[in-house]
């Protein structure tokens, strides 16, 4: 019997593409964020609002990942921002190779910031590096305040947490959601995570999020 010590990263093929992506983004001076959440947390609505509110100050492009349909890319294009749809046909996460193909279709020279909206899933996408500058996790209040405790991986790895749909808390909806619990659980996993409670619907809290994005581009 022969034993061979391999010591090889299992996802090394993905990581090779991730490295290419981060080099391509750096060449074009683009910052890139990978948005991860459960289905229905409001990622697309957040992006549409962000793009509209930042028109004239930040040039944004979007890569959309979905199992089926190009509905999300169409919603983004309605804002006049360029969007490339990746249809994964069942795959639960985006791979760096798919993102590489999409990046090449975007007019990177005319953009400053790329958002990758990953497939709705709090588990699988967190294992696949795409070459991004950071992950942003979105949690909507209707999903419950136990998500950082239940899905620690993505909260431990993200630069920022957007707690979306906070209009439901003040609007009288019958939702048990303790924002302080989410803050404490997320910070326990990740001391440096930035937390923004927002409503993409009403615009509440969005200016702090925009301030953070400007900071990421080195704009005051």
């Amino acid at each position, binding site marked *: 019997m022969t034993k061979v010590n*391999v010591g*090889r990263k299992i996802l090394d093929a993905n990581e090779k593409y991730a490295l290419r992506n981060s080099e391509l983004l750096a060449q074009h001076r683009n910052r890139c964020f990978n948005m991860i959440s459960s289905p229905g947390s409001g990622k697309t609505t957040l992006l549409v609002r962000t793009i509209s509110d930042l028109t004239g100050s930040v040039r944004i492009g979007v890569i959309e990942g979905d199992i089926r349909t190009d509905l999300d890319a169409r919603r983004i294009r309605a804002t006049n921002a360029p969007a490339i749809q990746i249809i994964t046909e069942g795959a639960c996460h985006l791979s760096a190779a798919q993102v590489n193909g999409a990046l090449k279709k975007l007019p990177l020279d005319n953009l400053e910031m790329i958002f990758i909206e990953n497939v709705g899933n709090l588990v699988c996408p*967190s294992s696949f590096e795409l070459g991004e500058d950071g992950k942003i996790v979105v949690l909507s209040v209707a999903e419950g305040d136990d998500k950082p405790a239940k899905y620690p991986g993505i909260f431990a790895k993200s630069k920022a947490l957007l707690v979306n749909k906070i209009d439901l808390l003040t609007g009288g909806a019958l939702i048990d959601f303790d924002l302080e619990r989410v803050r404490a659980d997320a910070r326990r996993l990740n001391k440096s995570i930035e937390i923004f409670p927002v409503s993409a619907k009403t615009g509440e809290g969005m200016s702090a999020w925009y301030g953070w994005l400007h900071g990421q581009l080195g704009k005051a």
Partner: protein
Amino acid sequence: MHEMAMAQSLVAAISEEARKHGKPIRAKMSCGMLNVVNDDVLSFAFEAVARGTPCEGMQLLIEHKPLQAKCRACKRVFTVDLSSAKCPDCAADDFELFPDAPLLLEQIEFEGIDDDEGERRQENPGRE
């Protein structure tokens, strides 16, 4: 089912090694806690992807490496259970997580003669 992509990568990597070393019978891999690898799901995916490749029928051993943390209060390094994360000494819940172990293909065992023996035989052809 991120395990499917992991299984595909494993089968590709092991098949590549099999071209040099022959029929693989067992492989050891390790993973951290934050990649949430489910053993049953990964083993099932591996078996399915391995069909018709040199990896068909081989055994996959999965080791889960614990996540370590350092307590900011008393500096103790401990294994974290993320569902009830507290320092076992001082009960503080303020700690620094160490990097999670990567997904790693560690070792493959192949059928047949040792490499060393194989090389010796090639050096001394027909002397028996």
